[in-house]
């Protein structure tokens, strides 16, 4: 892997002028392919039957003013469902800092299920608002 990636770096190091740092080159793939997955929070039943299951499931417990886990790290894939299974003893809200963004209202009861997808690759923080904690950072990779 290391050797393969030498080539683009070498090309870039030679080819990019200083000003080139400020101006990105043309993309190789258009962004239009994201729009088909933009229907956020669709149930997993819409996935084609037999498709590889890359669902990411995170179990979250909120109890006595403490959330578990915090600052966890999980992998996820663009367009694939991400599920938060939440048990809580207090109302709160969960903010997913992705593109598109999601907000879920947490009620004071067990077995709540929030499902969403992320359209744009990146590191996505999932935050619990009232307790002011980051539950998990999702590393969302392209498909």
């Amino acid at each position, binding site marked *: 892997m290391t050797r393969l*990636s030498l080539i683009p770096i070498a090309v870039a190091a030679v080819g990019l002028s200083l000003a080139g*740092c*400020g101006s990105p080159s043309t993309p190789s793939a258009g962004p239009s392919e994201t729009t088909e997955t933009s229907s956020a929070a669709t149930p997993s039943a819409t996935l084609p039957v037999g498709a590889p299951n890359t669902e990411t499931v995170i179990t979250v417990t909120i109890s006595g003013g403490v959330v578990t886990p915090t600052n966890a790290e999980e992998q996820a894939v663009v367009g694939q469902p991400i599920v938060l299974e939440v048990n809580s003893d207090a109302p709160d809200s969960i903010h997913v800092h992705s593109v598109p963004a999601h907000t879920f209202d947490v009620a004071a009861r067990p077995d709540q299920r929030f499902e969403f997808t992320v359209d744009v690759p*990146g590191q996505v923080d999932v935050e619990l608002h009232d307790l002011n904690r980051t539950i998990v950072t999702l590393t969302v990779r392209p498909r």
Partner: protein
Amino acid sequence: MTQATETVLAHGVGGSTDLPIPLNYALVGGVWALILTFAVVAVAWRTPKFDPAKPGRALPGWVTVAVDSPILRGVVATVALVGTVWVGVAAIWGPQNADSALPGAFYVLLWVGLVAVSVLVGPIWRVVSPVRTVWRLLRRERAENGTRGYPPRLGYWPAAVGLFAFVWLELASPDPGSLTAIKIWLLVYAVAMFIGAAAFGTRWFARADPFEVYSVTVSRLAPFRRNHQTGRIVIGNPLDQLPTMPVRPGTVAVTAVLLGSTAFDSFSQSKGFRNFVDRNGAAVPLLGDSGGASVLRTAALLFFVVAVGVSFWAAARATGGVTREQRRELPGRLAHSLIPIVVGYIFAHYLSYLVERGQETVVRLADPLARGWNLLGLDSGDVVYVLSMNPALLWTIKVACVVIGHVVAVIAAHDQALRVIPVGHQLTGQLAMMLVMVAYTLTGLYLLFGG
């Protein structure tokens, strides 16, 4: 401003952050930085090459006429002022939640966009600065006789403080996304600018306006400059212009704030640091959980800035054969060589923000009051996530920016060392500086890799 507080957003603008660069990209970048550094030192030229007095290639006369035209400058300043008012209207009467255009305009378009434009065309803030424009309108009739003149020993220190105040709000304050906090910051900024200008005249803007000093600093890398003998605008090697960075008290502090804060931004997103802040934030007395967390982040931010400043200062002084007086001047005389590292790292770090959050912000500004105006036909579907969708491209750009910035810095430092370090000490005298620059770059790559 009375609604419930917004949630804490990364950099105050929300959305996701870049994927970390893979290890092999970081390693390849690091190896290139090392090889090229030693190449520069080993095969180096022995007489200084770069000279701000070089004439450059003169651009057509109309360029100089246009740049110097009071009418054109007035038009540009007016457009910038209208843009500022536009953002102000969106901030005050627009949506008061995460849909507000203010954080994006403040943290992305202003902070990162200013660097991009200044690196390309020169110190633009001097022309577009809204505080300068308003001041000119207010003071049109009165000459500046009542002012005391700016004390030279202050140098750029007020701007360094202002820059730190900006990065503190973005990276260490309790809630960087708080519209109220941003508005208070801007109000304090405007008041400080006007009071200072009333006391010291317009030189205050040149020394104390954080955005102007930021713009002037990075503009030393612009390909365009003015030939001071002919007055013509010329195009030339940025390395010839780089040493024109004014050496004043606080010059090193300005670059240390810029580089240290960008490194802290990467570091503060690491799991280890977040856990540390979460566990110990409540232990800080009197301030509560989020206040305590802010104190810890502030201390860490300050540590990064001081570490950069002190290491650079010490490395610049680490040479033999100079008098005490000359040694004291060395950090300032070498400070310009840090600018390429700063610019390279800022682009590596914030380029996707500028391109993608920048587009989101422009879309929001096209509908400042959230009434569905969609001026210029812009809506959120138009945002193209060109860099995030192509991680390999983004990683390549990031590593290239860091490595190129590093190499340009090393070249500039070597060339300046030939001027300021006496013969016989030139090779050993720049060793510490080269090692410090390598350390900055490897640390930067490590942080982009994600620790």
